[in-house]
């Protein structure tokens, strides 16, 4: 399809197309529902014959993320995708990437848990995503798309943020956004970087020690506690800079609203409809949608709740983001939660009912 053309596709397919178009060098993945279309689409596209992008089905999610570790460590734009149980398996690799400061991208098309759970959509990996997920004091940048368009747009954004901060970045989607078909305009083609461009952008990359520099060594290990503390302090300073510079969110009909719904991803799409229904009944409700779940838009939420009578956090889980909203709001107004579990996607009417029941 031509640049700028409107086309219809699944969110998962959009991820694959966007990866090729944004100059990704490699994709390493393992099949799991509901995201297998990502690697299937890439396999059909054969980008190794066009852009030279490597696509490899790994033996496990553990291997996939460690391939991302290796590729990112060699300065390449590499990514993987999975769904909740597979993302759990990747946590070791993600923690190592955070420790070694490697800029990979991973997509989580969430399904309900715990354990093998269900193949139906869920947002129950919010805690895992926003708290780091693996061992150690670290964070990954988390982008939460609410449309097929954002699935397409966030791939390049995630790579840019990952490389800007030398940090793993995650696209936290779910089975709704991954499986639904919508209109999308794919990002324009961008060539893969040349070796010279990689050397310039990633002087730390392990691609062979040339005579003009010391060896590049990528590791998360340091046995001297004093040195390890300094490395951790450096990471925390980096996270502070990310919190200051990279918060993204969107608001809808908040100006005249008495009540605010906070939702992300697919739940935000349902909340949009709920707001429409509520307003038809004369209830003035608006939406606050965090786009970055980490860094979390806490200051923007505090600003947005001024003059509001209450907040309903609607998310497809048992109450996870609501904790961050409560921390931000800090008791200024009442913050309630509504969610469905186990792969059930709530109806807009349920959200309106919950708002009336809990806040009015």
């Amino acid at each position: 399809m031509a640049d700028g053309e409107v086309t219809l596709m699944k969110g998962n397919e959009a991820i694959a197309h966007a990866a090729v178009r944004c100059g990704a060098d490699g994709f390493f993945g393992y099949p799991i529902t509901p995201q297998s279309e990502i690697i299937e689409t890439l396999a059909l596209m054969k980008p190794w014959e066009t852009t030279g992008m490597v696509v490899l089905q790994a033996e496990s999610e553990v291997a996939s993320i460690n391939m991302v570790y290796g590729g990112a460590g060699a300065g390449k734009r590499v990514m993987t995708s999975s769904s909740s149980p597979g993302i759990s398996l990747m946590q070791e690799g993600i923690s190592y990437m955070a420790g070694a400061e490697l800029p990979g991208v991973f997509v989580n098309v969430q399904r309900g848990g715990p354990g093998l759970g269900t193949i139906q959509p869920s947002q129950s990996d919010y805690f895992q995503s926003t708290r780091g997920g693996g061992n150690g004091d670290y964070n990954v940048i988390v982008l939460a798309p609410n449309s097929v368009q954002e699935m397409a747009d966030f791939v390049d954004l995630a790579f840019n943020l990952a490389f800007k901060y030398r940090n793993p970045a995650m696209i936290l989607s779910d089975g709704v956004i991954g499986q639904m078909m919508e209109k999308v305009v794919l990002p324009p083609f961008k060539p893969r970087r040349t070796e010279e461009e990689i050397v310039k952008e990633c002087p730390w990359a392990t691609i062979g020690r040339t005579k003009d520099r010391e060896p590049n060594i990528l590791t998360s290990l340091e046995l001297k506690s004093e040195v390890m503390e300094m490395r951790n302090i450096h990471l925390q300073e980096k996270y502070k800079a990310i919190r200051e510079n990279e918060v993204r969110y969107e608001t809808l009909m908040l100006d005249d609203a008495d009540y605010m719904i906070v939702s992300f991803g697919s739940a935000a799409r349902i909340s949009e409809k709920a707001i429409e229904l509520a307003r038809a009944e004369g209830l003035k409700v608006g939406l606050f949608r965090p786009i970055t779940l980490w860094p979390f838009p806490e200051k923007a939420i505090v600003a947005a709740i001024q003059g509001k009578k209450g907040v309903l956090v609607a998310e497809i889980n048992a109450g996870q983001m609501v904790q961050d909203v409560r921390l931000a709001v800090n008791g200024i107004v009442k913050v309630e939660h509504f969610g469905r579990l186990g792969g059930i996607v709530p109806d807009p009417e349920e959200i309106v009912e919950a708002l009336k029941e809990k806040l009015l």
Partner: protein
Amino acid sequence: MSNEIISPENLVYTKPKLMNDTIMHYCPGCSHGVVHKLVAEVIADMQMEEKTIGVSPVGCAVFAYRYLDIDWQEAAHGRAPAVATAIKRLWPDRLVFTYQGDGDLACIGTAETIHALNRGENITIVFINNAIYGMTGGQMAPTTLIGQKTSTCPYGRDPEIHGYPLNITELASNLQGTCYVTRQSVETAPAIRQAKKAIRKAFTASMEGKGSSLVEIVSTCNSGWKVSPVEANKWMEENMFTVYPKGDLKDTTGIK
């Protein structure tokens, strides 16, 4: 004794130029230092020092990156073959090798090892098999011999309780993706020369795109085995070589 013979023209041996001037953490008598030296020599001999990426394991060789003057990535425990897979696929003209011990390669990383080898990734795996977990203090390894005592099988490895030693190198030789699978050792000068040839062949096969290579070095861990270095060599020759016999298990490289 006169020092007259100590002059540059009489120099027959020197520290490999890719070995850093760093004090090694390896125990005296350990095989790792010798194998590091061989890897360093082969990279220099092939003039690949500017195009080599090593992947170090978790285990005693975790700090391999301190000792060789090349680019390194330190992998999670057992994942080195997956890390190396991506580096090689993304930079096909680079020499990419992993350096792993028996616990890393044949236990926690069995899946990554088998699948990287079976895909025929153009990488070399240097595999140090000393039949014990050295770094963590001498626990049972997948390659620990039957009857061998370790801190987690203090009465000797009993197949009824602990299962059998895993001969992963033989397994690797049966995989279609491997082109060169060999078992070497470094306890004598001839053995060292032979091991160096094997590493050279494996690295050459990687660069010629012939498939995966696995070079096992049957090694000693005198600290873990709780014997002297000399006794360790003897124990290895008498016990390890019968279970892990030396020689090429597979060679389809056509490389002399």
